[in-house]
């Protein structure tokens, strides 16, 4: 078992100061090399679950086990590196003031891996990105290009598990298929586990092996 959430619950205050129980009761499991769908409409609490798994904030109740050990917030060391997330909006997933090159080399530095332009060009080719893209700012790249770059960036950390928070809902169908194709290929070679959060039932079924549904903060398995 890669990751397991046991009866996690989360309440937060919204902008008007009203307490909202975003996640009431969520239990889910994910094995290595597996894609598990989390299907729900907007406001169902699906993104909040993703945020908790990735260590943005801890659940109020319940616990999250990673390789059998309870995760403590904030995540440190291997678990910080091994659990990553891909967000819905690629255009705000990059610092707008940095060129793609500056953004891309950062995870290499964090991993203390040697990196230069040549290494980077070689690594990003399989994501459909080229040397010309490296000197551009995020505003000069398409949504599909940015989302593939965002994926390339987190993969440098050699994650064991990635939370995919609606990664293709802002993309056109061809870009969507390309991102999914890359995700599948990565999973085959690295045996990465995916939690695929989406509102799109057809897409969820086409991409996931198992599907959880979430409605009003309660998760159930199909």
């Amino acid at each position, binding site marked *: 078992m890669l990751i397991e959430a046991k009866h996690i619950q989360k309440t937060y205050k919204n902008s008007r100061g009203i307490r909202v129980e975003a996640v009431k009761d969520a239990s889910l499991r994910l094995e290595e090399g597996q894609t598990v769908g989390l299907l729900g*409409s907007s406001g169902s609490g699906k993104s909040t679950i993703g945020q908790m798994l990735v260590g943005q904030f801890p659940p109020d109740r319940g616990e999250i086990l990673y390789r059998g050990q309870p995760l403590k917030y904030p995540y440190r060391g291997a678990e910080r590196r091994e659990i990553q997330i891909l967000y819905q909006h690629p255009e705000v997933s990059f610092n707008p003031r940095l060129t793609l090159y500056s953004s891309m080399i950062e995870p290499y530095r964090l991993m203390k891996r040697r990196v230069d332009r040549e290494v980077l060009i070689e690594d990003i080719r399989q994501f459909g990105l080229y*040397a010309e893209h490296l000197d551009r700012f995020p505003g000069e790249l398409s949504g599909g*290009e940015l989302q593939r770059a965002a994926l390339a960036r987190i993969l440098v950390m050699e994650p064991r598990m990635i939370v995919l928070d609606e990664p293709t809902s802002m993309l056109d169908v*061809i870009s969507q298929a390309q991102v999914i194709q890359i995700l599948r290929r990565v999973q085959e070679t690295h045996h990465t586990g995916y939690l695929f959060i989406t509102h*799109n039932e057809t897409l969820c079924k086409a*991409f996931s092996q198992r599907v959880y549904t979430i409605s009003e903060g309660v998760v159930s398995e199909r």
Partner: protein
Amino acid sequence: MLEIKDVNVHFSSAGAVGAVEDFSLTLEPRSKTVLIGESGSGKSVLLLSLLRLLPATAQITGSVLLGGVDLFRLKESELEKIRGDRISYIPQGGGNGLNPLLKIGLQVGEPLMEHRGYPKKKAVEASIQLLRRFRLGREETWIKAYPHMLSGGMRQRAMIAMGVAAGSRVILADEPTKGLDSDRIQRVVECFRELREETLLCVTHDIHFAQAVGQQIVVMYAAQQLEIAPNGEFFANPLHPYSQAILRAMPENGLECSVGFAPPHDVYASRGCRFSDRCPYKTPRCEEAVPPMLDRNGHKVRCWKYAD
């Protein structure tokens, strides 16, 4: 009837991205046309250019005939009378098109006050009927609400109601389903189907929405139209390799990637077909000249494959 003839849009400031080249399209009365294309293909710019809503840096040529009158030749003051009255524009992103400080009822009824001379009270009352037509539910309550109190899908439906309020015959809509989830998209689809008297031109990147709403499908890529076909014909027998790739990439068709990644260089600078770098059927001819728009029994396509 709305007739768009050879519309060209270029921006003096930015590069070629977002431009429109030689766009021609006929919208029959009470027809629904959906324009699909990825972001940056020029589809939204085209929509804005029709009502001359683009910034001053845009150079627009061509003509747009509405009942024999060329909108591009009208004075700004004359065009103002047409906007919201005979042609309505529903901007992208649902809520952003609504004034956050005005109650829903007043906003939906506003075109009636402006173009039909309704007093405020009567316009707000009429907005209840309008919202009911698009099944907002509890309309009497919602007209007193401010935009932020509605969900994204409800705001989008309110925008549609506002668009048809003054009895506009032509509705232009930009990405009406962007950012909405499946259930809400379905509701918006129903709203658009509800428009029986109006002529619709809708821009989207959502292929399911296009299939559900459009009677005529237009595909745009890098400022050019690639294919124009009736709905059934398009989805059963797409001609352009790009259209074929779009349909194959749909989740229900297996998310297949049949074309390459977009090239990093500027495709606008190439002499040939702008899609040729990604096209699996590329021949030498494709790189030499832009293919003409070919008409095959009402199914138009811009591809050298069908030239002979």
